[in-house]
């Protein structure tokens, strides 16, 4: 791969918002997002001479790095959090939950907290990183049809719970 063949400045401009939003969706909060985005690009930049276009599109390659950064971060975070500190989805409206719903992002984090890690990852890749199903399949190793099925089911579920959540606050 010839380094000179890619316009790295343009790639950065295109990809940085996607990586940033991937981490927002994945982590469910604004904390750490800038740090994780930075780590991803620094790793990518250090190794960009090894990028081979014949093996993967640039965004696929970059998001492999981003996913690894996310996995490392979550693993480190879990190691230090007590098990009962995990967010819980409200089964009913309570004043305690109101305090958490100060933004759509926080609300999404609450709603996705009980989803399997794989489903949260797919949501983050699809809606945060704005990646199509084919590329998600390449990144995750899940078949493309399964990606579509899981996303369909997950989004339906989120939509219903989001509406229910809104109804609580009307």
């Amino acid at each position, binding site marked *: *791969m*010839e*380094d*000179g*063949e*890619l*316009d790295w*400045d*343009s*790639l*950065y401009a*295109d*990809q*940085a*918002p*996607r990586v*940033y*939003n991937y981490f*927002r*969706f994945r982590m469910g909060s604004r904390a750490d997002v*800038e740090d994780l*985005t*930075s780590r991803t*690009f*620094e790793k990518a*930049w*250090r190794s*960009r*001479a*090894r990028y081979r*276009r014949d093996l993967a*599109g*640039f*965004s696929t390659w970059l998001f492999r790095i981003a996913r690894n950064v996310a996995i490392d971060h979550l693993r480190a975070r879990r190691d230090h959090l007590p098990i009962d500190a995990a967010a819980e989805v409200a089964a009913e409206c309570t004043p305690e939950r109101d305090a958490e719903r100060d933004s*759509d*992002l926080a609300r*999404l984090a609450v709603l996705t907290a009980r989803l399997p890690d794989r489903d949260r990852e797919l*949501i983050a890749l699809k*809606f*945060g990183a*704005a990646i*199509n*199903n*084919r590329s998600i399949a390449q990144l995750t190793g899940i078949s*493309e*049809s399964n990606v*579509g099925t899981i*996303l*369909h089911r997950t*989004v339906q579920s*989120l*939509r219903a719970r*989001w*509406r229910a959540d*809104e109804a609580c606050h009307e």
Partner: protein
Amino acid sequence: MNDDFLHRIRVQPSPEFLARLKARLDRQGPVPHPRARLLRSLVAGLLVGASALALASLALRGELGGFHWDGWGRTQVSGEGVPPQGGAAANSPAARDVPAAWSAHNPWAAAPQPSSRAAGRQGVASVGPVVAIPQSAPVAPNATAAEYGGGAALLAPAPSERLNIVVAAHADFVARNAIAGFVKQGYNQPALLVAPEGSALADFCRGNSLDFIVPARRMTPAEIDGCARLGAALVEVKIGSEVVVFGRSRLYGTLSLTPRDVFLALARTIPDVANPGETVPNRNATWNDVNPALPLDRIQVLGPALGSPQGQAFLALIMEAGCDTFASLATLQGAAREQACRTLREDGVYVDAGPPIGAQFIQRLEMVPTAVGVLSAPLASGNADALLQLPIDGVAASAQSVADGSYTAARTMYLYVNRDHARRLSSMRSFLLDYLAAAWGPGGPTLLLRSGEPTEIRTRALIELGFQP
């Protein structure tokens, strides 16, 4: 509420953060050229090996600087290598496998073959000769006949040889593209007439000066017979079908639409239910507003530019068809019809997403799962894993449903060639091939479903006209 909530959560990172990160990345410096790294490694390896060998021989000889060494020494060499290739590199389109520029707000079979008709015996009243309309600025040429082995004229054209071509309005774009390619080969500029709506096709055969005609519909046997009686024996070439297909991401399942639904969704003004004969500004926001049988999804249609051949096909085959379902609008003509039937809302429900081709169009549809795309037939069938084709009037588009007429959002394009002229005018073979190439090529109506393989269609047409295929 729809699933926009997931898209709304995306934000643009702060410019300060992006600038800080970029500055940090730039401080890493340009990455050495991979070959430079390899060369450096090789040089380092050779030097290490040579040094090791030298030290080993000294050790074996038991001397180095007057001391006896029984160990190995190593020297590290950092070579300069080949300077990296950097600087402002050309932006490689293939590498930019990325979505369109970020925006925080993102709304988003083989048909039966044609047969030429026999000459008839009907008489027709006489009218004036064909009048040529001056050409507009030439458009970018598409593939020329050269690609099909027919580029050069079989015989050198006579200096006065000039083709007379009549086309319906929807074929004007393709004809001009064909003419541009034709003229570039050195032929005289043809005389092109865009037939006024409602013209009697047989009238263009008077004086037997017509060489090619691309009508708005298939000529009837009576019209073909009429031309033959006027001396213009026409050979019919079925180019293919313009087919408008709707599709959307598989994420949200199918949506059964009719042209009337689409008209009520997208037209700038729609009939006022309370006052028949009057129209009101279109305020429909969801498909359910248009038709209670449809879901509450927000109306969002990604389609081609309305001035493009694809856009014109969409306006004719869907919008006008939907408009015609209203008795008060079906009888409109001219400017009034254009206003009522072919003018879309400008409040963002219809988005010009460029030509409905390629991965980028698919990506845009996937980013807005509730959006409906106006697709080309090849795009829809080639991406069935990502997209669901939506039926129109309950019928899915296929070669068969287009051929038998059950799929209504389609029109078949025919080209008629004056056979006797083709045998005399050497340039006609070239123009025929240029026209077919333009109709099928990138500048043509990409909604086109061909009536067969290009080679077959061309060969059959050439043989019928007496040309060498």
